């Protein structure tokens, strides 16, 4: 659903309201990018998502790769061929691609290669909040942080030049608060492109030890050159009048928080500012210039003291440096916490809301019951979890099974009332952990993984299970798409990122090909069959086998969008209050958001019900019945 004013297409000088992610996509287009690859992950998804929608018209090759490592390799290959390429991923995705990244830090780049890491301070949608600027130090790759969508756009465009000039990949670090902030972006020109890649044999692409030793020397030389270049890098800004007592060094969105905090404290003209966009290597000269002029420096940055350590190393003897002693190392920053820190350091008066107000408001706010994310009405995962619970209960295993979960909407099976998931570490870990767990515990082990995650990181773990004879129940929740990030295709899909036909690989074929002998495929909307397939598989596991059940049913939101419909069938469902015994099985055990307790009765919210019909099979009293709606109301 992209509107005209939020489209990344448009002529020079036009103004758009773009997400930071979309601005990066536009910047890549303005740089004449040839190739973009990614695996979807919040908060990075919209970068390649936006590019995929316009790729065909612009002649850019865009793909959703099966994982981040492959995405980076596809982009690196383009760079080796002299083309401009972008690889985007969420922070933890860079862990998957880290092996490749480290080698690219040695080999360098040829065509401009921009690697975008979208970090997630505060873990809005992630398993951790790691600060990927640290990868730049580890890999000898320079890192950059823009502050707002306009800068994200302009910087991305120019980073392709930096990459080619210095023959290095570059790391662009975004954080959630920029990636998902819309802002005013003035568009620049889009170049005509007519480049074709060409490959030459170059020793630097083969990292044999004999070459790697030489490449390390070159990588260090590149860093020296970048350090100089960063002194005059146009996105860095030093605001220094010379009479300031306090200096702020800030990067990314933190810079804007700091500007606003200073304005609120009415000390904007009493504080010097060094805004750093090139955060590694930090420009020594600029930092020294600030340090010589002020008494004390506050480094404002999200998550780790990355700039702080560099500032201390450069100027720690000449100036008092503060950072993570006054600002939190966990969670994202905001204007309030930065104002507190600045007030403490400068002695400026910070007007705080009266404590009576805070107390009263807190009392009202906390009375609102929490509303964690839930599986959608009609979500096939809910039906799968319900069947799994029933199957375990009927096999006498309730509460005795360890369920190793994975990354996706189905991680929500951790929460009540399902409470099935016992572990979720990272992409693909469900199967790897099950390989070990099943060996070290007496009770059966279940691994639950989604289809996109299965192709991303579970295949080698399945091979491991087969080869080493691990016995557990592998449940693949196959909803046909990468649902949580917004329905991107994966290797099981019949279409590619840009809408061309793609060969969809069936999960059960992969399992059988990898040597899993016992594979069943069921529709989770059919509770009876699903329970029976799961029970059979559980019995096989207890007899020492590896058994897989593929639970296949399209993501309900994806399916409804595809059909352009509000519900799956003409029927919606209602509770016959005469027949309802108020046993609450539907509310407490199935917990579909459409089923609610209102005025002491169980009712189904017609606006929320998608007509999946699973609750009919859940109700022991047979009180939930279909109501056929008129044609008109249906669409």
């Amino acid at each position, binding site marked *: 659903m992209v509107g005209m004013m939020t489209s990344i297409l448009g002529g020079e000088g036009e103004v758009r309201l773009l997400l930071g992610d979309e601005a990066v996509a536009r910047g890549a287009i303005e740089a004449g990018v040839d190739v973009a690859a990614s695996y979807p992950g919040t908060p990075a998804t919209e970068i390649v998502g936006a590019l995929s929608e316009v790729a065909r018209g612009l002649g850019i090759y865009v793909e959703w790769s099966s994982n981040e490592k492959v995405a980076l390799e596809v982009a690196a290959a383009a760079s080796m061929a002299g083309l401009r390429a972008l690889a985007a991923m969420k922070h933890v995705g860079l862990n998957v691609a880290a092996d490749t990244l480290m080698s690219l830090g040695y080999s360098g780049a040829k065509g401009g290669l921009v690697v975008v890491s979208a970090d997630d301070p505060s873990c809005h949608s992630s398993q951790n909040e790691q600060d990927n600027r640290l990868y730049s130090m580890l890999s000898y790759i320079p890192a950059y942080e823009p502050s707002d969508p306009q800068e994200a756009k302009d910087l991305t465009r120019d980073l392709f030049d930096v990459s080619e000039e210095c023959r290095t990949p570059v790391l662009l670090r975004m954080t959630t*608060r920029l990636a998902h902030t819309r802002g005013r972006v003035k568009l620049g020109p889009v170049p005509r492109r007519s480049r074709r890649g060409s490959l030459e044999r170059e020793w630097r692409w083969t990292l044999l030890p004999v070459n790697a030793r030489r490449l390390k020397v070159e990588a260090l030389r590149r860093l020296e050159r970048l350090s100089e270049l960063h002194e005059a890098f146009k996105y860095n800004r030093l605001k220094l009048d010379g009479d300031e007592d306090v200096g702020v060094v800030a990067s990314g969105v933190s810079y804007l*928080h700091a500007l606003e905090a200073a304005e609120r404290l009415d000390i904007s003209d009493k504080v010097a500012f060094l805004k750093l966009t090139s955060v590694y290597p930090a420009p020594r000269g600029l930092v020294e210039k600030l340090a010589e002029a002020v008494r004390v420096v506050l480094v404002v940055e999200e998550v780790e003291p990355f700039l702080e350590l560099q500032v201390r190393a450069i100027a720690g003897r000449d100036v008092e440096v503060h950072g993570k002693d006054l600002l939190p190392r966990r969670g994202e920053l905001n204007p309030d916490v930065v104002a507190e820190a600045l007030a403490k350091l400068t002695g400026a008066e910070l007007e705080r809301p009266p404590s009576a107000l805070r107390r009263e408001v807190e009392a009202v706010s906390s*009375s*609102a019951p929490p509303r964690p994310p839930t599986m959608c009405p009609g979500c096939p995962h809910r039906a799968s979890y319900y069947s799994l619970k029933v199957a375990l209960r009927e096999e006498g295993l309730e509460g005795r099974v360890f369920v190793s979960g994975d990354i996706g909407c189905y991680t929500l099976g951790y929460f009540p009332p399902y409470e099935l998931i016992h572990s979720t570490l990272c992409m693909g870990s469900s199967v790897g952990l099950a390989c070990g767990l099943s060996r070290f515990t007496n009770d059966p082990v279940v691994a639950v993984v989604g289809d996109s995650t299965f192709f991303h990181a579970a295949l080698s773990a399945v091979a491991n299970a087969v080869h080493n004879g691990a016995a557990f129940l592998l449940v693949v929740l196959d909803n046909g798409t990468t649902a949580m990030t917004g329905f991107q295709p994966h290797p099981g899909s019949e279409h590619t990122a840009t809408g061309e036909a793609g060969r969809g690989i069936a999960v059960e074929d992969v399992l059988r090909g990898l040597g899993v002998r016992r594979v069943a495929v069921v529709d989770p909307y059919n509770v009876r069959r699903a329970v029976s397939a799961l029970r059979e598989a559980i019995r096989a596991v207890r007899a020492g086998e590896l058994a897989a059940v593929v639970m296949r049913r399209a993501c309900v939101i994806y399916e409804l969008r595809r059909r352009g419909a509000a519900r799956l069938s003409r029927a919606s469902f209602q509770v016959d209050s005469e027949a309802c015994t108020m046993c609450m099985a539907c509310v407490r055990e199935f917990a579909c958001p459409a089923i609610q307790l209102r005025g002491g009765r169980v009712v189904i919210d017609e606006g929320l019900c998608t007509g999946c019909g699973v609750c009919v099979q859940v109700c022991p009293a047979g009180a939930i019945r279909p109501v056929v709606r008129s044609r008109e109301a249906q669409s």
Partner: protein
Amino acid sequence: MRRRVDLVVAGVGGQGVLALSRVIGVAALMEGYDVKIAEVHGMAQRGGSLVTHVRIGSAVLSPLIPRFSADVLVSLEALEAARHLALLRPGGLLATDDYVLPPTGLSSRAPDVLSAIRGLGRYRVEVVRAREVALRLGEVRAANMVMLGFLVSCSAIPISKSSAIEALRSELPARYLEVNLRAFNAGYELGRRKGFIKPQGTS
């Protein structure tokens, strides 16, 4: 004096919080303002609590609104209004639907948060039955545009009717344009009947 408005938009994932924020942002851009909208994507969208910060002004710095400083809090659901109340400044406008969507699996009664908020006596509270109006129009998902019509007609946001409609046309899918326009106009009428409300003391 610079005209600056900080607006918080709240609701439940699926209610159209993002679309409402985006239409307001685009309209403000058309009016010549600088705009920033802090959104939330991903897991939180799955039926969870959803909030955006919309900042409109001559030059917006941070995308985040400090606590107790928003001029307007708009909510498409009552519990979400309460949840994000700490962003609203005393004297600010709370425009909220009184529709209560109990969180999934809640087996006790949801609290009457609107009475509690009114009881504080610190805000201008306007109940806008946007969902009810949208249901009458046959499209519950248009409740967000009812709310937009209300906000525009009572000048809670610095956006003219024509910019709002232009933004709505630009940003929402063409096949729902008709019903969204009707929703907007219905909300606009609601606001007109309430009279001219302007949050006091916008900086």
